[in-house]
């Protein structure tokens, strides 16, 4: 433990030492370059101070045991593996101490007493967390030693690069215009790095959705450049594949039994949702179609030859028929799977998308029914929310009636109400209305307005100049016409924003369908995707393809309506002011 503690101290000191060293270098270069606006005296003092401090820290830090162990050059790293409570102790302790220091430095008595009080509160908090932390004997702090291995060349290169960039910054910074440029470059670099981090999961999603199964797992890290198995059309004489029609669907089948009366028993291979089901039909209803067979290389007579797998046998072995060289063409042999090397080329496996849809229950027509249900819900919810909320908001913002303020404060308070409280009774209501396993419970409530939308629209309506409305009234407009022809057009942007957010909220709604919907023909996409994950979770290619398909419409909408989202978000945020 002591050893580790010393290592930790040494590491932290050496980090500080490096910091000082870079400051030393920075000040040195700026002094040498006579960078404008630099207080030379102050800089010299800083130069000396950071030089001495850096040297001492580095010497002490690097001298600590373990910091420099081994022949390998390492940048030392240390991590404190602490339970959450220990971090809380640390943070609150540091805050308490800093408040004490502030109190000590305070200008006047009032500030001092304020700071002292804060320090006291934080000290109590520290004590409480410390107590909680000590109560559980399993809590312990562990120091983890480590280091980033560096070769001498890399280390020198990093230091040189740092010095060079400092010099460049100072050189450019001499001109006032350059200063802004340095800043802009640094910000751009940070932003690009951030975008990469935020974009990686998207890239992962997209690429995974185009990967073959064998690329899903790789000991060399994630496969970013997928490859696809090359295939060839092949008419299989031995196990022919037929196309036929079954319950209105085109299916691919194997024939498992020929009957004497000219019919045959067919076993469905594709679509996946029907796989394994059998049916009987007349022979002439079946149409012979080619199979897609994988192209592979195998060793034959001591040389590597290219061929196609024409049969996957029951015991896992593969029957391969040679394609190239021409001399061996058509020759067949049986290989264990390990000796068969697939021929793969860089490319995307687009089939994941149609295949994902094929696995969906047949009554959903390749997922179209999911999409249809989601669209029904989205359209009805958006229309319902906007119609009802806007007219209510109009009344609240522009009309005078007894009880308005009471009603409005009730409305505001319902915004805080967690949905959980009304979840169960609402289910019971829909049950008595026979609404379970229908779409009604998911869209009907939208026609009764949503508190947040009403509140938001009311703010917008209030901004519409009174004169417009007064003019309309004088012209003898009814309230409905005033609302519809004067107020609504004035708030198009707000309504667009609300439409977009409602769209997204409905598209994402998961708990509602989870509770109310049972049969595939009433399911929206969100629930379908979750069930698909339970069903085909082991096939990430298909899963990610399906997930991508549910994301794309939302992203498209987002790009089309970005302006409204940005503006609207700004306004809702300011609503909290």
């Amino acid at each position, binding site marked *: 433990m002591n050893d580790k503690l010393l290592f930790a101290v040494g590491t932290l000191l050496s980090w500080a030492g490096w910091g000082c060293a870079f400051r030393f270098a920075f000040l040195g270069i700026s002094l040498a370059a006579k960078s404008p606006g630099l207080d030379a005296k102050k800089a010299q003092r800083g130069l000396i101070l950071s030089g001495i401090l850096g040297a001492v820290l580095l010497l002490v830090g690097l001298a600590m045991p373990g910091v420099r162990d081994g022949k390998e050059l390492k940048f030392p*790293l240390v*991590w404190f593996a602490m339970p*959450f409570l220990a971090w809380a102790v640390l943070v609150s302790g540091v805050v308490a101490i800093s408040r004490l220091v502030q109190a000590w430095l305070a200008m006047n008595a009032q500030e001092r007493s304020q700071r002292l009080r804060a320090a006291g509160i934080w000290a109590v908090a520290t004590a409480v967390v410390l107590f909680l932390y000590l109560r559980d004997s399993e809590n312990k702090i562990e120091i983890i030693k*480590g280091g980033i*291995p560096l070769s001498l060349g890399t280390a020198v290169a990093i230091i040189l690069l740092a010095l060079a960039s400092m010099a460049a910054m100072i050189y450019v910074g001499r001109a006032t215009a350059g200063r802004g440029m340095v800043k*802009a470059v640094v*910000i751009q670099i940070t*932003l690009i790095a*951030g975008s990469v981090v*935020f974009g990686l*999961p*998207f890239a*992962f999603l997209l690429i995974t959705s185009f990967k073959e199964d064998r690329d899903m*797992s*790789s000991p060399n*890290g*994630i496969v970013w450049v997928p490859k696809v198995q090359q295939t060839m059309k092949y008419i299989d004489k031995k196990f022919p594949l037929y196309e036929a029609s079954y319950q209105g669907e085109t299916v691919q089948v194997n024939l*498992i039994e020929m009957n004497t009366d000219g019919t045959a028993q067919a076993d469905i291979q594709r679509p996946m949702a029907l796989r*394994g*089901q059998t049916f009987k039909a007349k022979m002439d209803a079946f149409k012979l179609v080619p199979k897609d067979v994988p192209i592979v290389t195998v060793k034959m007579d001591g040389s590597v030859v290219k061929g196609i797998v024409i049969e996957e046998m029951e015991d896992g072995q593969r029957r391969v028929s040679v394609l190239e060289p021409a001399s061996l063409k058509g020759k067949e042999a049986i290989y264990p799977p390990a000796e068969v090397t697939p021929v793969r080329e860089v490319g995307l496996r687009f089939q994941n998308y149609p295949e994902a849809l094929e696995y969906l*229950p047949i009554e959903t027509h390749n997922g179209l029914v999911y999409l249809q249900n989601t669209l029904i819900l989205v359209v009805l919810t958006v229309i319902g929310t906007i119609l*009802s909320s806007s*007219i*209510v908001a109009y*009344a609240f913002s522009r*009309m005078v009636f007894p009880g308005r303020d009471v009603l409005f404060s009730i*409305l505001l308070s*319902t915004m*805080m*109400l*967690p*949905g*959980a*409280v*009304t979840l*169960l009774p609402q289910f019971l*209501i829909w049950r008595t209305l*026979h609404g379970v396993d229908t779409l009604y419970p998911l*869209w*009907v409530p939208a026609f*009764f307005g949503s508190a947040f939308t009403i509140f938001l629209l009311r703010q917008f309506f209030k901004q519409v100049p009174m004169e417009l409305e007064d003019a309309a009234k004088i012209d003898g407009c009814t309230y409905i016409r005033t*609302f519809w022809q004067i107020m609504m057009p004035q708030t198009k942007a707000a309504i667009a924003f609300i439409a977009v957010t409602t769209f997204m909220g409905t598209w994402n709604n*998961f*708990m509602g369908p989870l*509770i109310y*919907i*049972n049969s595939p023909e009433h399911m929206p996409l*969100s629930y379908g*995707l*979750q*069930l698909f*994950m339970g069903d085909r979770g082991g096939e990430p290619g298909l899963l990610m393809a399906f997930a991508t398909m549910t*994301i794309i419409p939302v992203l498209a909408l987002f790009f089309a309506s970005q302006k409204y*989202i*940005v503006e609207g978000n*700004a306004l809702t*945020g*300011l609503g*909290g*002011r």
Partner: protein
Amino acid sequence: MLGLLALGGCASTTQSEHAKQQELIIWGVALGPDSKGDQAVIAEFERRHPDVKVRVLNMGAGGMNPQKLLTSIVGDVAPDVIFQDRFTLSDWANKGAFRSLDDLLKRDQADPLCPKPKQYYKAAWDETIWDKQVYGIPTGADDRILLYNKKVFRENADRLRAAGLDPDNPPRTWSETLSYSKVLTSKNKDGSLKRAGYMPNYGNTWLYLYSFQMNGSFMTPDGRTCTLDTKQNETALKFMVDGYDILGGYENANKFSSGFLGKENDAFAIGKVVMKVDGNWILNDMSRYSPDIDFGVAPAPVPDDRFYQRGEFKNEKDKFITWLGGFSLAIPRNAKHVDAAWEYIKFATSTEGRLIQCDAQRDWERHKGRSFIAPLTASSEANEAIFKKFKPADKKFADAMRMHIDMFPYGRIRPATFAGQLLWDQHVKAFETALYKKKSPSEALRTAQAVVQQELDANYEKEKYPVLDLSIPVKVGITAGIAVLVALLVWFSRLKMGRLARTEALWAYLFVAPWVIGFVVFTAGPMLASLFFSFTRYDVLNEARWIGLKNYTDMFGTDRALVIKAFSNAIYLAAVGVPLGLTTGLLIALLLNTASRGMRFYRTFFYMPAIVPGVASAVLWTWVLTPDPNKGLINAGWQQTITPWLGLAPPAWLQSADWSKSALIVMGVWGAGSGMLLWLAGLKGVPTTLYEAASIDGATPKQQFWNITFPQLSPIIFFNAVMGFIGAMQEFDRVYIMKPASDGSVGPDDSMLIPVYHLFRNGFGYFKMGYASALAWMIFAIILLLTFTQFKLAPRWVHYEVDK
């Protein structure tokens, strides 16, 4: 309003459409390559009943999800037939969720297809009975016998003989089993196992089988008392402990068995385990993957006293005992097509139906070049017919099948109880603690018994509480509503106002009516109802009972551990996740605000994660967070950086109790872009004059941030913190989707259990409407408390412009 009208209209049209051909919906059966038999049965049934079309739900909701089944029964959209594990029938029957089949059985007595109790093994038939009524017809059945590897026995013949054991015959008693196991077990130098003679809980025995053999039971016949902690069960558990002691302890044995593979490398098939007690369902795979294995069968070994019929077993006539289980077909209580459902059940469970099923499955396997061992049923008549027709050609498999059939009459069943699942979980917990030697067998059993007993008492004590007529509160509510409406009308008509003002007010009332109606119907009414329910015990299917504060005391009593866990998990997620998300959003916004170029592009980019639909992003992140560094994005990165630098192995994220919440938080930070837009707007709103003044005064950027930017933004920070906390306390979707599929717990060791999930499970999983309502109010109270605290603390740091 429109919606309600449309609702009425549509509901009536859909019902009339279905009148012609009945659609029989079956849940729990999936059609695929391994269920050719079921498909054949359905096809034949449809041929005989042209007016019925059978529909099997093949993804998700049609599976064995009890929450969906119960919701569908409660919501009156139940399937017509459900394939159900027999020992859970009593639980469903007790809830009143299934229909008693007594009347149908009586009506169709004369029908040759109609199941008759005498065709069935008594235990299997009894398992379908709850409160003297039949709730399901048994289909498949399974029992357990001993399988032993003859080859290993032969190879060790000399050593067995030296120990006084017969190498040509298997053990018949417990003590013989242990002696054989001692000889046949072999270990490596470090004590790890090379081969196990007999692993008491490998195969399929659990504690149940050994307890049955001791004449033990886990429940009194009336189902009111849990009897886990009895002499018999303790002896049974001691046998398990002794069995594992020979193997070097439970942990050592588990280490050994964690390396077991399936199919052709099955541990028994390759002689890693020499003897095991297992069920008949394994025979088909054995004949497919390891047809050459030389094994023998015998009844499962029994306690010595039983075998020699002495001591407490003196008057016992059955030497050997087995454990019998299996499935059944049942009809939910509000099934739409009871007659068709009954016809289907009769046909599917009949001997004829079973033979059709076996035929079709055999043809399929044969076509694939595979062997076929017929599944056994709970009907002795059908089993004899099946054995006659499908007797395996290979003698050892034929012997095994025969032995299974012969043992069925000696099968015992798990007790009929509504607490079946809990009893199961607790019995596993009990024997595991004993096997790990954390507690003595009797101590472990006693603890488990206490937990089960509590649940039993709670159910029986419900009869103490008065039944509530739910129509009264509804009537009171409606009357009160009308009274309030009338009072308001009177009040309004008496108000002194001009004609114009009155017209305006009337129009205004008309305009706000949608919201007011919605508020009453979907918010205020449900809230009152929920408050009311929280004082009752109500499962929708049975009458409600007034139990006063019991739901609330339970929350702090029996369910305390889970409730505390749920709330502390949520508070952890909120306390770490919300500030982290806000800070990330703010940092991005600050960078964007200073960036001169590409602002729009970056804004789009950082905002994109926030608009990805929740389910899709949960699906994506489940994969991103996969623990295997060869697959998961995060751990692949970890493997290449942190592992070589700090020597830390990648964490198991969602699969680990310590990391699952961190996983959710990391995922939350990815979506921090949603806050960013607000910050950007806020930053644009800060008057530039403030900064100009500050820089003239020589303020550093840091000082400018803390003295200008932060106070100016603080109202938005506050607004977001409040909304973020409220949102975090109501999380549900992510956890529901991302929690690893497992037994009862939500995430490892319930580390992902959050309040709304707990509510969902109680409400829609167990339909404890009362308790779930109490939980809902608890969530509400905690949200209010947190929000209130935030508002109290706000003046300390939130800066409001006075003149606004």
